[in-house]
């Protein structure tokens, strides 16, 4: 689905995102509050859902190549997060929905997990 459909589906507020970014398709997502967990994955999810709202979420996404970040439970994003989102061209959303509810809605619309393996296999 398109990122702008994700915004509507989750009733999300857009903290940062350009029209051309919002027109992009996403197919994979991951949810975690542990950034190291994300960084140890083999595949890169396009969407990251998390309860954490700090700069590290944005840096981790920039390093890992994540397209869009959804902060759940209506937690506020600060100026620094928006600044990094702009700099690194990452879409940043906040939704009042819970992590469970957000994931459920996205899964129902066909989004799937990127391969979450943390083993050391590397091609």
């Amino acid at each position, binding site marked *: 689905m398109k990122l702008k459909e994700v915004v509507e589906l989750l009733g999300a*507020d*857009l903290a940062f*995102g*350009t*029209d*051309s970014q919002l027109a992009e398709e996403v197919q994979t997502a991951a949810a975690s*509050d*542990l*950034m*190291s*967990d994300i*960084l*140890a994955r083999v595949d*890169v999810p396009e969407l990251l859902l*998390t309860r*954490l709202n*700090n*700069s*590290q*979420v944005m*840096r*981790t996404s*920039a*390093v*890992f*190549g994540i397209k869009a970040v959804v902060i759940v439970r209506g937690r506020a994003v600060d100026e*620094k997060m928006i600044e990094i989102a702009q*700099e*690194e061209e990452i879409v940043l959303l906040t939704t009042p929905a819970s992590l469970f509810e957000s994931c459920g809605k996205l899964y129902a619309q066909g989004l799937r997990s990127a391969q979450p393996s*943390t083993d*050391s296999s*590397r091609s």
Partner: protein
Amino acid sequence: MEPRYGKTQELLYELKIEQVMRTDVVTIASDATMSELREILREHSISGVPVVDGDELVGLASIEDLIRWLSSREPDCAVHEQMTRDPECLHADQPLVHALRRFDESGFGRFPIVERASGRMVGILTKGGIIEGVLRKLEREFKEEEIRAYRVSHIFEDLLADYKEIYLTYNVPGKDFDRAGSASTRMKRNLKRLGIRPDIIHRLAIASYEAEMNVVIYTDGGTMEYRISPHEVILRVRDRGPGISDVEEALRPGWSTAEPWVRDLGFGAGMGLPNIKKCADKLEIDSHPGRGTTLKMRIFTGEADEAQ
């Protein structure tokens, strides 16, 4: 919610009329005849011309005026009898978006452009001219970015030496969580410009970021030094922290000395060092309790078979 503008809209605000108008303006004298007008329009394949009396702009004569005259079957007459008088002019220094709005509101096909100070006609603007100007500008910007990427990715080929290396260092302040990770994200951008393979950049960025976070979280600061040569990148991360008492233990997944606040940041689960080890082709850890830690990682950047 802040308004968002696409690249094209941005350009319309950025560009001035003078950057896209035609300056080689074809004009016609006000006492020229309508059949002369027809010849001029045909010869230059244009649909209208400013009418001048000496140096002064007195009107606009367009293909519509010509058709109206032709269908009236009146005898040949002077252009100033058929032209549109006192045409609306735009200023050369106005943003393009203003011109576009005037085209929409007025339905006119062209505007003479005058210099604000002197009132002198300096050009003419048509909708076609706007499209051409915006496309030209887009193309130029695209080319500039392409040339920059090309230049960097060929640095190693273009420089002549027996040994070539790019050396970049970053200072990493301890406990500064706003900046934490900025060395690695900046470095990731540099590596892209250097034309290094995306999968290798990915591994480098992860290893670099995990190491940077360790410096920020556990020490009072340190440095990150990148040595980029044609076939490998060596990253040395030095800190003035407490050191690691048992390096082998620290490399075991899940081993951690992190306090709860580190976990609140999304780190501290004992996955950093194992992940660095996974991403790097070679990892050396030199650590002495009380004297700090130095991580040295090597990542080969050549083709897969070279990296073995």
